[in-house]
């Protein structure tokens, strides 16, 4: 399979890098401080393909901390709030759209 870094990177708007945390699989976002956060509002935002490639490269390099890193779109709302850019990322960020069974 082609490495994410070898794939042609094309972004059409503000983007971030997301992955899953290796030990438990939780959704995480790459931060500007070269770390990971479970909070989308702390994600590093990029606007060009070159910046996206660089952010992805440093994310993929952390193979122990994160798995499956990729670039995903975000929306920047008035006031700077970061929101997921598509339904898949909305679901990853907010959780499933269905009610889960309540723990007994």
């Amino acid at each position, binding site marked *: 399979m082609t490495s994410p870094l070898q794939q042609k990177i094309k972004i059409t708007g503000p983007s971030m890098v997301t992955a899953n945390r290796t030990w*438990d*699989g939780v959704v995480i976002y790459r931060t500007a401080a070269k770390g990971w956060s479970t909070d989308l509002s702390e994600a590093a935002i990029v606007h060009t393909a070159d910046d996206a490639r660089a952010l992805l490269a440093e994310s993929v390099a952390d193979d*122990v901390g994160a798995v499956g890193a990729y670039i995903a779109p975000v929306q920047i709302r008035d006031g700077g709030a970061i929101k997921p850019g*598509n339904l898949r990322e909305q679901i990853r960020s907010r959780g499933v759209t269905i009610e889960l069974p309540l723990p007994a």
Partner: protein
Amino acid sequence: MYAYDEIDRTLINERVTEFRDQVKRRLSGELTEDEFKSLRLMNGVYLQLHAYMFRVAIPYGTLSSEQMRRLAHVARRYDRGYGHFTTRQNIQFNWIKLAELPDALADLAEVGIHAMQTSGNCTRNITADQWAGVAPGEIEDPRIWAELLRQYSTLHPEFSFLPRKFKFAITASQHDRAAIKVHDIGLRLHRNAAGETGFEVLVGGGLGRTPFIGKTIKPFVPGRDLLSYVEAILRVYNQYGRRDNIYKARIKILVHELGIEKFASEVEHEWQQMRDSALTLDDAVVEDIRSRFTYPAYEKLPHMPDELKQAAHDPHFEAWRKNSVAPHKVPGYAIVTLSLKPVGGPPGDATAEQMDAIADLADKYSFGEIRVGHEQNLALPHVARRDLPALWRALDKIGVATPNINLVTDIIACPGLDYCALANARSIPIAQELTRRFANHDTANLIGRLHVNISGCINACGHHHVGHIGILGVEKNGEEFYQITIGGRADENAAVGTLIGPAVPYGEVADVVEDIVEAYLALRARPDELFIDAVKRLGVEPFRERVYATR
């Protein structure tokens, strides 16, 4: 139930130890994800949208009550208190932590459950008719042969790296409940003109991006030759199957491109060189497997006990009995299907509490045995008819007595975009909305047998191609749309459904299904003409007109 021997137990325990070491090395950084991925997949561990997903095999759909309790324990201890029964007699846990997976596997291994070959390009879980061994008219219990195939294919060195995954299904009944025609190899146990038992072997069935109905490659293979014949098929596939294009790597593509006659001739050539090899099954081997299946000590019981006569006055009980209780091969007993399709619920999900309760009820009423069907429901296979009223009350209490088996709300659905990394669109909320629309049981009964299958992407885990009504989620410009097919079926007359027209948006899917059902009710020749028969008689056009007239 089949009792594992020491070899099985050792194998499963060794796999736990091995995987524990692999996880430890992954978490320490000694193994990269690239190195680890194939190892985790060999143990049923996928990475999904929110977390790791853990797929556990339930070979030929048979579970003991002890095993069910252990699944409940895993759901409770390592996940979020529930599990999802799949269309291939597996159970999936959606929220499991990689660091805890070895412990979960170890807990399962104690009761003989594992996750080997629930993923990867190998032979997957061998599935069977969920009524195997109890269905009236069955030739013999097909699980004996499924177990032989399980042992043969587990960690098979030659077939652990096939071009693509490989799925077997087996039945010994005339009515196919195992969907054998949409498997890579489908096996139908039957008797030939001389009265001998053997297998009709079908090959090249499958769904996904390119659906095909399996073709008969050999109408009769004696039981003693079963392993050598399937090995010949696997060898030809392993040699000629494409490895350069994942979308063309399944055996169905090879069979289609070569043609069944050419493929069959290649297999025959291979088989003739090896049919009298070590793979020939002598009677003693088959008998040894057979002897490890234990069957209940059935009592001689009346067909119509007093308990049943009295309960017949309760219309709710009668609605359930008529819908969810099937004849058993032994007089006085019944097969009871437990619906995992409550109104508004995710199809195939069961909570840990439900699993524990079902295990207790299996002990009390079904000789400790539970079955899992590809329709994502469960069954208790050995229920005395006198116990049906008491069992119904207990099942109703835990929410698994919805009398909707084979009706419009008995929906097969994949996890879809709520969980799955491959999905383009959601499946579960569509299913939930449909169950609300058709929640009235009188209406559902009026409609009659109608299978709705939903997949969130072209990989077709929800078997949409073979739904009487099939719903396929696609993505268009960032929005969820759904293609609707009708006329598919997964039984002995399996067929791929026909697309009725352009995809419709998420919010219109339930309306479209209602339109199709209304058209059927208006057009059916008589009240007992099933939806699937009406579609066959009328074609797609009247339904297309009804759906798109106002869209």
